[in-house]
């Protein structure tokens, strides 16, 4: 069985950053990812990133994926693509599945950067063909060039909901409406404003009540909801759509962390069950680190910074603290702090705070 010094699970923004940083410091790093192409969700993000100052401001997500992959390559990270980590076993062993083959990979240190899965909500007809997660629609369009439908109802006005809606319009697909159960738009104002300017109604305090159709989606029923998210009688409206996109948040993909025996806590602000971790991203299991959405739902920019912290700290654990590793960690943590100070960092900050107050032992 092969044994690597550091194994990184997940080749998205967090995992790629962790791998590149640790390899740059001198660690022998293997990066395992279940897709053919590295980059995680970045490869479908055709929009430009923005922020106050941080890295990659003005760069499209898909280009960030390329930059990060190249950097990992420069530092001689060994990449196992199209390979799923299907188990974490006692004795620091991972089970890897690649096509029909299964093999084991040992590790000394591990960064788990598996990201998140899309949530769904219950409504009649939500299993009809034509009901998608918004992320899935984005992948179909932007990665595979497949048009998911002709007229779409978007459920959820967080960043994913509003960005994907705009990209649907760019692809020549009609967006009938965006419904948002909360009384206000969740995503960045700039994205929402673009939609409104193009005539897409964003209906706050509204939700989807049912998907219509026998074989596939032919319409949707939406309605107004009250302050406790209960449908308001007499406000039902029918929309003629063939696609319903559900963008109602993400849940950390924490299975490996459970298997590792990490202390897990349910923190709603972070999207569900997350592993307790210290300020250096190390979990209650020594040598096992988290970074990115699996440590709490945030965004690509924070995922990259958490990845840098986790990668550098994993290297320090294997070797020793150096000026270089300390600088990487300090600057990444400083930037994380500044991103989270913004209005959209409030939820994650609160979640991370709550997690920090949990007792790991």
């Amino acid at each position, binding site marked *: 069985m092969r044994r690597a010094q550091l194994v990184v699970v997940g080749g998205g923004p967090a995992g790629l950053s962790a791998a590149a940083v640790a390899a740059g410091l001198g660690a022998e790093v293997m990066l395992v990812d279940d897709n053919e192409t590295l980059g995680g969700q970045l490869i479908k993000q055709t929009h430009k990133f923005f922020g106050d100052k941080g890295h990659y401001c003005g760069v499209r997500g898909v280009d960030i994926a390329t930059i990060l992959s190249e950097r990992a390559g420069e530092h001689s990270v060994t990449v196992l693509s199209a390979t799923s980590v299907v188990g974490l*076993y*006692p004795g620091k062993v991972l089970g890897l599945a690649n096509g029909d083959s299964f093999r084991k990979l040992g590790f000394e240190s591990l960064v788990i950067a598996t990201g998140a899965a899309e949530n769904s909500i219950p409504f009649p007809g939500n299993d009809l063909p034509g009901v998608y997660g918004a992320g899935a629609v984005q992948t179909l369009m932007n990665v595979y060039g497949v048009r998911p439908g002709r007229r779409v109802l978007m459920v959820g006005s967080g960043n994913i909901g509003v960005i994907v809606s705009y990209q649907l319009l760019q692809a020549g697909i009609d967006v009938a409406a965006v419904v948002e159960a909360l009384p206000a738009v969740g995503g960045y104002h700039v994205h929402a404003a673009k939609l409104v300017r193009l005539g897409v109604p964003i209906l706050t305090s509204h939700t989807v009540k049912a998907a219509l159709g026998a074989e596939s989606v032919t319409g949707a029923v939406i309605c107004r909801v009250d302050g406790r998210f209960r449908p308001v009688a007499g406000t039902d409206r029918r929309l003629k759509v063939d696609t319903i996109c559900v963008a109602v948040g993400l849940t950390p993909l924490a299975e490996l962390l459970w298997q590792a025996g990490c202390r897990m806590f349910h923190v709603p602000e972070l999207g569900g069950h997350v592993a307790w971790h210290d300020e250096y991203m190390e979990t209650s299991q020594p040598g096992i680190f988290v970074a990115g959405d699996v440590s709490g739902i945030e965004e690509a920019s924070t995922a990259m910074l958490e990845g840098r912290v986790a990668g550098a700290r994993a290297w320090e654990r294997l070797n020793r603290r150096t000026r270089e590793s300390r600088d990487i960690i300090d600057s990444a943590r400083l930037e994380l702090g500044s991103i989270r100070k913004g209005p959209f960092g409030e939820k994650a900050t609160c979640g991370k705070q709550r997690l920090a107050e949990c007792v790991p032992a």
Partner: protein
Amino acid sequence: MASRTADTVIVGGGIIGAATGYYLAKSGHKVVLLERSFPCSGATGRCIGGIRAQFTHDLSIRVMIESIRLFSELNDELGETVHWHQGGYLFLAFDEPRKQAFLEAIKVQRNYGLDVEFISSAECGQIVPGLNREGLLGGAYCPTDGQADPFHVTYGYLAGIKRLGGEVRVDTEVTGINTRDSKVVSVLTSKGDEFFCPNVLNAAGAWSDEICRMAGIEVPIAPDRHESLVTEAVERLFDPMLVDYRSDGCYFVQHIGTGHFVGCYTPVPLVPGRNMDATDEFITEMPRRMVRLVPKLGQVKVLRQWAGSYCMTPDGSPICGRTPVEGLYISSGMSGHGFMFGPALGKLMAELIACGKPSIPLDQFAPDREFGKAEAMK
């Protein structure tokens, strides 16, 4: 602290507690079942659902014949589909001593009217198309053995308890058993309740030694770890549970309702304790063993693996009956056969608790028996 009363408090929400509780409730007992975690969270929910009467211990054979009768009526009894299917069990003999042992066992089993016979290697191949018969001398085959779904059976019994006016409390750990003059008085729980009751049934499986210790009693049980896996669903390949007793053998069956194969093996050496980690050794070894027996399975993917406890006794037979503390009963130490024994032992233990006398005497399973000759068809 709230205090309540019951006729019988049952400790453990696996098949044993659920079935016994059901038959007790049916006989008019007020039953309160306490489960530390969730129903089937112990060995029941981790077993592969095999059911057979092919044993060497005569009481086990008798109890299992009764259990199979109960399983075959369970859909109607519980108003729940329990996926009972009589696909048989085929124990394979790859050497002469094993064949002789099976022939001996068959003599005993047939005495109790069991429809079991030793069939040739060729006949094994007919019942299990695609079986690798290299070195196979034949097998002990009983077509009335079968399978059922442990979750549906257990949840069906639990629903029955509630329907009959009993209570099922999950997330409720038993923290103490109060006795006076060597007699049960009450049971204390982690939720702060105290249940006053004349009877307590310890059906806590791998944890039943801890429950007994609360009343100052020791029972000779020793859990060890068994691992299992489930494959993706495929078309029906064959009916019986295959059992290969070689030291590098295994046993597996295809679930009738779903098409998944489920199986496990007994590790050599045993892994004692309640550790329930799934291992990389098992996930590499078990498929190899399955494919050796049925090469076609090489094309089938594994979905998932997990581990559970065999709660072993010194002779590999259950420990069921009264304890030295009056009112405290035990039904445990199922030695890997709790699910299949469940319905019959549930009914018999309910008879013992409610009427003082089970319709099949359980003396040979009594906690104070001499632990002698071991069950050979483990």
